[in-house]
């Protein structure tokens, strides 16, 4: 294009007069920002106040530094992950059977595949401990067993002649019971009735139960208090899951809805979010931890996979609450689980299929996967529950004939953060970490959709706040407040005065308190005087020393 003065207008001006190393640097910064960044930077150039500008610039550079350092620290992550890969086009990874995998892996890994035949006490549910070391099995007909699954060592095993619905703390027919490692019953939570689903929020020490009545209950297991009790008003629930990113609980219901709850919610205000996910009951949900190195430092629940009775499996982007993709299952999937590195296991009927790449993090558009990564089953064992073993390439499958542990290459996170969960911890370390995590316990009110809201600015207007304030409340009476506590020799009044005198602030309250103090003193003096007079008698009292 040429203008009338002869100058050429370049449509796409070549602006990359940047040297290579500089470009490289920028690329690195961009990547670091993408992986480890903490939000958008503020514009410091428009700030007028010099000091603030300087401070914020320093802050921005700190952010950048931190991100870059974290990116650089990636080279310390030794473990690499890999998947089964077909060599030719005709080969399919889902045709690889477990025994083939077992033959080709190292012995230590091969040992992780095993089957427990427990065909008498009904379909089994199970769960791994957070560090993936222990396994708790619960048969529907009351068989409970806890074991160190890698060593095959049984910690405890006992039989409750009741229906066992969920695990962890064990939800039995009527109440929820908590047992210790040796199988001794510690607590019976009789406020939780007919519980069908349990979930534990490790950072908040909250046990979440969802019962047949449709009540969602949060119990603080460190203090024993029932934090909140919310009625979902939707009858018996179908499923329960938690988002590891923000500890929001997802409850799946029979009307196809998924509701997002936090302990701050109330039954009157309703859940944080309602999703219409399926056309039938929501059978199972799972939220991803976020894959990649960043998950070491922070979980980021971006995607959820839910399965419904309508034979559908939906992948949701739960930041935008949009469906990414929908898949069909041939039977309603009973259980779904997402591994550390984003492999999704779906248990349906007698089969379990593992999917890889249902969602990719930085992709602009999610692709629809055509074929599964691995399959298992088809041998007449109805799958009750699937669950990934943390930090391992192992998938546990609970079915009506017991429990099976299978190897799924590339499922576990190869680089573990042992300060977070340590599978190799000693007893002492475990005790220490328990204490530490108790000290770092988060409050239930801190749970929200955006976990970074803490410290943010309250955006309500003064009017709104005024309206919400209780204007009818009685004004606080200083006198009453102080007098009320005034007991014992070291009275509240005296303590208050002692502290206030040091500060030397004179305000209304102080004046009042001083007055009270004087009054008190006066009274005391009179009392003493009277006593003296009483001692001396009426005749001699007139000679008593006056002060």
């Amino acid at each position, binding site marked *: 294009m040429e203008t009338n003065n002869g100058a050429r207008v370049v449509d796409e001006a070549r602006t990359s007069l940047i040297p290579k190393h500089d470009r490289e640097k920028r690329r690195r910064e961009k990547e670091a920002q993408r992986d480890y960044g903490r939000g958008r930077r503020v514009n410091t150039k428009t700030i007028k106040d010099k000091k603030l500008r300087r401070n914020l610039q320093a802050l921005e550079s700190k952010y950048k530094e931190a991100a870059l350092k974290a990116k650089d620290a990636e080279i310390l992550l030794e473990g690499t992950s890999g998947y089964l890969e077909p060599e030719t086009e005709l080969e399919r990874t889902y045709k690889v059977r477990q025994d083939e995998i077992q033959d080709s892996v190292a012995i230590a890994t091969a040992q992780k595949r095993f089957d427990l035949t427990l065909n008498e006490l009904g379909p089994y549910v199970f769960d791994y401990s957070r560090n993936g070391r222990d396994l708790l099995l619960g048969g529907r007909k009351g068989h409970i067993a806890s074991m160190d699954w890698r060593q095959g060592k049984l910690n405890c095993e006992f039989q409750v002649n009741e229906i066992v619905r969920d695990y962890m703390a064990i939800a039995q027919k009527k109440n929820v019971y908590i047992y210790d490692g040796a199988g001794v019953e510690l607590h019976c939570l009789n406020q939780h009735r007919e519980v069908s689903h349990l979930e534990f929020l490790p950072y908040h020490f909250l046990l979440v139960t969802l019962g047949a009545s449709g009540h969602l209950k949060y119990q603080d297991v460190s203090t024993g208090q029932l934090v909140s009790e919310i009625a979902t008003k939707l009858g018996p629930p179908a499923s329960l899951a938690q988002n590891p990113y923000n500890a929001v609980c997802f409850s799946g219901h029979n009307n196809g809805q998924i509701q997002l709850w936090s302990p701050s919610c109330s039954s009157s205000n309703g859940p944080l979010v309602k999703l219409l996910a399926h056309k039938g009951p929501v059978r199972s949900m799972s939220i991803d931890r976020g894959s990649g190195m960043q998950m070491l430092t922070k979980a980021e629940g971006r995607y959820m996979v839910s399965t419904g009775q309508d034979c559908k499996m939906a992948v949701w982007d739960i930041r935008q609450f949009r469906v990414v993709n929908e898949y069909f299952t041939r039977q309603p999937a009973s259980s779904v689980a997402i591994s550390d590195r984003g492999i999704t296991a779906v248990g349906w009927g007698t089969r379990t299929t593992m999917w890889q790449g249902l969602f990719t993090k930085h992709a602009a558009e999610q692709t*629809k996967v055509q074929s599964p990564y691995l399959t298992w089953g088809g041998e007449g064992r109805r799958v009750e529950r699937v669950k990934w073993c943390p930090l391992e390439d192992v998938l546990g499958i609970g079915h009506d004939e017991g429990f099976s542990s299978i190897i799924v290459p590339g499922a576990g996170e190869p680089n573990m953060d042992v300060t977070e969960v340590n599978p190799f911890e000693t007893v002492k370390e475990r005790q220490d970490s328990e204490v530490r995590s108790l000290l770092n316990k988060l409050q239930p009110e801190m749970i929200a959709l955006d976990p970074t809201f803490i410290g943010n600015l309250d955006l309500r207007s003064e009017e709104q706040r005024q309206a919400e304030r209780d204007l009818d409340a009685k004004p606080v009476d200083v006198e009453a407040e102080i007098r009320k506590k005034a007991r014992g020799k070291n009275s509240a009044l005296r303590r208050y005065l002692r502290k206030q005198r040091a500060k030397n602030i004179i305000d209304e309250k102080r004046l009042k308190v001083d007055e009270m103090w004087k009054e008190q003193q006066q009274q005391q003096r009179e009392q003493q005087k009277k006593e003296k007079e009483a001692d001396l008698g009426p005749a001699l009292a007139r000679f008593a020393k006056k002060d």
Partner: protein
Amino acid sequence: MPGRQAHGRPLIVANGGGGGKAKNKRSKAKASSRALGAYAAAQAEVGEQQKRTPRYRQLDADLDDDAPRGKHARDDEDDEDEDEDEARPRKMRRGARRKDEEGDNVEYGSDSSGNSWRVNAVDSEDDSEIDSDEAMGESDEERFENFKFPTNKKKKKQAEEDDEDDEADNDEDVGDADGASLGSDAIDLADALDMSMSDDDDDEPEEDEDEDDSDAENEDSGDESSDVESDGEDHEEEADINAWVSQFAGAKDADEDEAQTITSKPKLGLKELGLLGVKDSELKKSLKLMSKDERATKKQKLEVPLARRAQAKLDREVAYEKTNESLGRWLETVKAMRRTDTSLVFPLPQHETGLARHDNSELTPLNQKTAGTELENTIMAIMEESGLSLSAEPKKKAVVVDEEGQTISRKAMLQEKRRERELQSREEARAKRIKKIKSKAYHRVHRKQRERDEIKEREIMAASGEIDSEEEREALDRQRAMERMGARHRESKWAKQANKNGRAAWDEDVRVGVTEMARRDEELRRRIEGKAANKGSDDESDVSDDSTGSDVDERIKILRELKRLDAAEDSEPKSKLMSMEFMRKAEARRKQENDELIADMRRELASDAEDLSESDHGPEDIGRRTFGQPTDPKHALKAGKSSKKAKAEKTDQAQVDINNLQEPITSRSKVLSAPAPQDHDINGTAGAWSQQKTSGSSRKQRGKKTGPSADVLEIDINSVAVSAQPPASTPAKVKAQKKDNTAQAEYSSDDEEQHMPVQFREQELIERAFGGLDVFEAEFQAEKDAAVAEDDEKMVETTLPGWGSWVGEGVTKREKNQRRFFTKKEGVKPEARKDFKNDRVIINEKRVKKNDKYLASQLPHQYESRAQYERSLRLPMGPEFLTKQSFQDATKPRVIIKQGIIAPISKPTH
């Protein structure tokens, strides 16, 4: 302290008591005592107290705390003698001080016009002060330098130090202490007072200057040295005083006499003469002279000093300014320290003098200078001996020596060089370049020779039976010969004749020959320049690639260089020297030579090129259809023959021949002849382009072998190309179809085809079971609508029926409606909802009250916007969220104190 009223009085008194001038000093003191306030009175008293006993003095002095004892003891001996003088010197000192102050302080102005003060002073009280100042004028000082004033000064000094005139000593002491604490340059109030005091000492201007100098030095050398120096000064002073005291006893009487004689001189003024109205300047002048004399004599009649308080105020002001200034120097340092992001580490890394020098944290490298101990010295010596000297010898400058053996400066050398460069003509430079090019050409020629040798060798080899190419070579030779015969060189006899006689005009044969020649010439040139002879000449260049490509390239390069030489000829500006006659001539001569050289080279190159084309590429030239010349069937035949041989041997040339032969076909089929799998039998000696062609040609060769004509072959190729396509694409399509199927259907692995129909049936069933009803969706939608309506902005009627109006019967509807009140309830508009565009989601817009306790109620100070504040919260501090380094950086204390001597921050140097 003197009262305020004491300011101007004494002069009046003095003037009033003009007659009493002849009185001795005691009477004078009395007079002044009358005039002075409390302080002056006290002073006078001291003066009067002639008979003070040493004991009394001792007591007195004891009361005045700090005065050093030794001095007092010394003074006591002299006191009796001095008594008479004592009052006077003190006054003198005062006067002197006053005067200097005036000199210093701007508010007093420069009172240099000592001429007129006397007259004015008669009327105004204020000017009386100036009077006293003038009494200490410079001239006077000169005059009485070794007579009266020295005593005064010394006296004053002494008085300052030992007398009850406390301040001086006090101040000095305090000043010392403070000075030490505040650094050398800082001037605290007391110091300033001291300074002003010492400034008063007009008698010691040199010393003052010295002090200034030393001050300046102090700035460099730091606190300690300055302290030491000032101490030394003190000692000096002391010594001076002692000397003076010892000498004083003898001189005393004479002084007194002298003083009497001087003071007895009557004062003369206009007033005294009764000539108040006199305006004559002459007269005034003479009077002035007189008064000057008078002033000199009237030492005793000194002005009452400024009230102490006033003076102190002035002193304070000055001191304040000075202190401010010196403190202001620290401003930058403090700012810098406050602003650093990193923490401050003490001891500070400073390399100035002071304690920082004794930094024990690091060892300085050992060298000749720092070697302090014996051991170090010996080590250094040994190292020196063994040639391991640490101190690198300074590099010797390359000394430039001219013809006479004199060293010349760098500048001169540069000039010289520039001159030489100027002299060196451009033509010479050109000649150099030409030579270079020529040498290239030479090498080229030699390489050709080598190649020929190689060919010979090959022939020998062929003869020995290794390569059986005799026939082919023969054919080639014949070709070349024919070429030569046909070629009519421009330089040849024939060409010259043709030119000369103009035969071309009438002889058709010659004309054809000439055009032919021109054409060839043109073609050669083009080929030399690397331009394609025609659009489709890719193959040609390809051909030249393998054997002669580099050769041609080189030739082209040389030609280009030559051209550049030509072009660059006149572009350069000419210097003065060059424009001179003889230079130009020489230049022209050289140019001619150069041009000839270039022409020679050109010719050579051209002939070379022709030779090359003739020798190596003869057949190709023949075969070229692009030149529009009908090809000789004979050639074609030959080519065919040779191609057969090529088939056996698979040389490039043969292939090229075939190429030429079948060019139209290949060019047409080029597009289609994508490298098919059959191509793999071709050897990869040729380049990428030629490979494609050879693939075609080889196929043709095969075709020739089998029999079918070229046309058939062409179709064949097409068909091959077409058939090659589908196998690649159809599987893909099939796969895609399959994928589609799987996408819609199931992932079940083994028996997809079997299950597909079943699946569809199932889906249909499901659709019917769930989708058809749409119960849940409808429910959900209703729920959402309700939520939206609830959160939306609402108008709420707050009308109280009957409020402010009548009710009951007879109230019209209009009246009723008039008194209705509505309030708007804030809410979230449907468009502003987060789930506005998402049908399957309801996001709760109600505030979660329990979360509020973790919100900030207002924007904290310093931040200007919410974004800034919230941004500042997002950086975590914990070791779990950061790398170790960033964590440590984030939690580093602001001030770190390391072990060692912590020196004060060094003084800012500006």
